[in-house]
């Protein structure tokens, strides 16, 4: 037996404390990095290749800079509450875990509402996805990011609900990883679209 154990040993301890769900979430996030890299790579290449096509339209985003900046702070705060939900969940403090999950979801929803307000002002001004290449990128990047937010808010609310009756500390950690990643994407989108 000890010999058999010795054979598997080299690969075993390396990832011993990582449960399968967490590893799977990290691998999914790896694929997400590539997904957004493709889009951002296209944006950077086209924009650097011909800046003039982008800069005229980008000035339309400047008066939404403060709104988008506020949204950035909102997402950072929601990452903080998500991290607190994970900590409280692991400590077995279910009421606090639920409270932090609900707070995170509310901030996600607030982000989306502000985003829809921003979209509505652009659409009212006739700035739609087929206006030009900048707005095509703007709607694609922020739309896909917004979809990711929506895809995070739903399981977070689900976790808040099921935390009443089940131990969802592992699931909270997994969804938390996803939520931090969505925050991370916005950290790059905000300066790339609004500031530079």
């Amino acid at each position, binding site marked *: 037996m000890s010999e058999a154990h010795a054979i598997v040993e080299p690969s075993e*301890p*390396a*990832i*011993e*404390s*990582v*449960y*399968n769900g*967490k*590893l799977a979430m*990290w*691998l999914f*996030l*790896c*694929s997400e*990095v*590539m997904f957004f*890299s*493709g889009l951002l*790579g*296209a944006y*950077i*290449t*086209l924009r*650097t*290749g*011909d*800046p003039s*096509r982008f800069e005229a339209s980008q000035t339309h985003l400047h008066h939404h*800079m403060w709104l988008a*900046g506020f949204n*950035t*702070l909102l997402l*950072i*705060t929601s*990452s*903080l509450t*998500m*991290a*607190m939900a994970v*900590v409280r969940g*692991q400590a077995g403090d279910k009421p606090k875990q639920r409270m932090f999950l609900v707070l995170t979801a509310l901030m996600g929803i607030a982000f989306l509402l502000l985003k829809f307000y921003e979209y509505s002002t652009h659409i009212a001004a006739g700035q739609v996805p087929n206006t030009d290449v900048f707005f095509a990128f703007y709607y694609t990047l922020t739309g896909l990011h917004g979809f990711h937010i929506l895809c995070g808010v739903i399981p977070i609310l689900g976790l808040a609900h099921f935390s009443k009756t089940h131990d969802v500390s*592992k699931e909270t950690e997994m969804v*938390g*990883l996803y939520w*931090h*990643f969505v*925050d*991370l994407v916005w*950290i*790059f989108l*905000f*300066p*790339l679209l609004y*500031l*530079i």
Partner: protein
Amino acid sequence: MSDAAHIPAHGDHHEHPKVPYVAIAATLFVMTIITVAVSFVNLGKTGNVILAMAIASFKASLVILFFMHLKFEKKTMVVICLIPYVLAAILLFALFPDIVYGQYH
């Protein structure tokens, strides 16, 4: 195995040290304000882009290391998580000739 991570019944599964989440979030707040502030300073187009991306990368590494706990994960996990960043860098470099020999005019 599946419940090995359930909680530290096993002696070798250490809980990671207490993470200063509020301090990290405060740093991210400050960095966001700095990003907006420096966008008003004219450092030349390239200078502004490099500075904004440097700050964003710093913020992203704080999120990954502390909020996502990568700092406290096993080395194998760190290697797995770094692979897409290497691939993303290769992707951007692969696109680089298109920028230099830009045919968009």
